[in-house]
């Protein structure tokens, strides 16, 4: 039996907001923030103190599949990915970490929300900050909508199942297959470990694909493949915006 341990590789230096960030919060009249971070940067005592002294209230929650409050994962892409909907009741989101992968998830989780909150990203290593707003996910939004419409009108569907234990949803995929077959569609299940969307090319008889593994595979899709995520596939019309 193989045992697995995780080394979360915590950032070992103090994490504090720069004056530039604090000034931005003040000058934009931000009175409350939803605070998120990636696992390396969860030691946020200094930042909490800084926000408190600026009288900015801090809202935190536990995201699905994490095991720490504040931590966010790239797969937290739905409104119900968070234990409580703190974003709705905050002026903005403060994200501590680098890259775009995690903050994009927080933006995408608001895709069906009217009043989307922007993200103030502070990178504790480079000390730089930037604003990430809806413009960063415009392409993804359009693609998700187009692929949902295509899916509804497709008759031959391929469901992709990953054998990675953390991403394996075979039972759910079989349930979807049954559901779609009842609607008269022809459904095939495809199995792989790491999913490379270029591999879909060879199965040209499939009109639309459903991804049951990590939701980012369909969302960050850089190909022109017609692919949606399994959560949407059960009730696609619910996710189509007018």
């Amino acid at each position, binding site marked *: 039996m*193989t*045992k*697995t*341990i*995780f*080394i*979360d*590789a*915590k*950032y*070992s*230096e103090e994490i504090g907001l720069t004056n530039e960030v604090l000034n931005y919060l003040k000058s934009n009249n931000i009175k409350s923030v939803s605070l998120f971070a990636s*696992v*390396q940067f969860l030691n946020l005592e200094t930042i909490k103190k800084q926000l408190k002294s600026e009288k900015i209230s801090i809202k935190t929650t536990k995201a*699905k*599949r*994490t*095991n*720490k409050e504040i*931590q966010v*994962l*790239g*797969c937290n892409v739905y409104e119900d990915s968070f234990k409580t909907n703190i974003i709705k009741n905050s002026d903005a989101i403060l994200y501590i970490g680098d890259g775009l992968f995690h903050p994009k998830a927080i933006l995408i989780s608001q895709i069906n929300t009217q009043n989307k909150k922007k993200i103030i990203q502070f990178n504790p*290593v480079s000390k730089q900050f930037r604003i990430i707003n809806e413009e960063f996910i415009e392409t993804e939004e359009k693609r998700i909508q187009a692929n949902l419409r295509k899916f509804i009108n497709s008759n031959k569907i391929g469901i992709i199942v990953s*054998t*990675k*234990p*953390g*991403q394996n*949803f075979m039972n*759910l995929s079989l349930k979807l297959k049954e559901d779609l077959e009842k609607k008269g569609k022809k459904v095939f299940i495809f199995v792989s*470990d*790491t999913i490379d969307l270029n591999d879909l090319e060879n199965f040209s008889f499939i009109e639309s694909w459903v991804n049951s593994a*990590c939701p980012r595979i369909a969302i960050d899709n850089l190909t022109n493949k017609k692919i949606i995520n399994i959560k949407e596939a059960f009730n696609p019309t619910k996710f189509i915006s007018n």
Partner: protein
Amino acid sequence: MYNLELDKIVKEIKKLKAKRVLIQLPDGLKPNAEQIVDYIQKSTNSKVQVFVWLGTCFGGCDIPSNLNIINIDLIVQFGHNKFDKESW
């Protein structure tokens, strides 16, 4: 800059009496593989075989499977913490 907790890994190896260890690193930490392998080998008098996963390390959801074929006793995944998969 990032705490790799190498002592903790060696402790776990000794506790498990692991003979074969696989380390898995996200892209940003892959350049540290040399340092990690060297440290583990030195601290265990080279009695442990340390392998490096060549492939992806997207998250706690992405643990290599089918490792029985090479008898891995311990996988050490860096850069993430425990992933609580939903049961649906």
